């Protein structure tokens, strides 16, 4: 069996009652292999939830469970061709409800394409 050393991730791994922890800091080469949400920090994101809701906001914090803090969050309600935003403010989303986190391309950039 390939033993993969979890090197270069800042993470706490707890197993059963033994509760051992492994922590180390990310090295530059590890950023490419990590599925960390760190690259999405301070970016405007679309978060899809399990109940079908779409939340938009700026990512301020996250953890290994994909719990997420969104600043200036709003819920985008889409009906046919129409949509509206319900402002929500500062939101903490529990990771188990998260389906997908998408990085939004700014509309002004899209206009240039």
């Amino acid at each position, binding site marked *: *069996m*390939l033993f993969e050393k979890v090197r270069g991730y800042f993470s706490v791994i707890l197993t059963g009652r033994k509760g051992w922890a492994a922590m180390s800091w990310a090295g530059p080469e590890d950023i490419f*292999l990590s*599925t960390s949400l760190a690259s999405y920090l301070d970016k405007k994101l*679309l978060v899809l939830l399990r109940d*079908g809701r779409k939340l938009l906001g700026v990512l301020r914090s996250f953890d290994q469970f994909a719990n997420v803090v969104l600043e200036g969050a709003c819920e985008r309600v*889409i009906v046919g061709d129409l949509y509206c935003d319900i402002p929500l403010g500062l939101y903490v989303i529990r990771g188990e409800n998260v*389906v997908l*986190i998408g990085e*939004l391309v700014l509309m002004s950039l899209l206009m240039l394409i």
Partner: protein
Amino acid sequence: MLFFSYFKELVGKEVTVELKNDLAIRGILRSVDQYLNIKLENIRVVDQDKYPHMLSVRNCFIRGSVVRYVQLPPDGVDIDILHDATRREARGP
């Protein structure tokens, strides 16, 4: 660990991830982790008209727990290596 290692080999290949909410997303596999969370780049939603909110999204992070299928390119798989690795894994420590 087996599938984690396997997906790491597929980084850079184009895959289609079908989620439990029936959303299917095609994109280049950028990274994977121990929970089989997936990061895709340059995504294209299958059946774009049904999901207009995804239009402005180029890259995304998909939580491993919501994945139903990961559809792979047929040439992206070396079945024999996968077979051997599975047998080794099944044999136990």
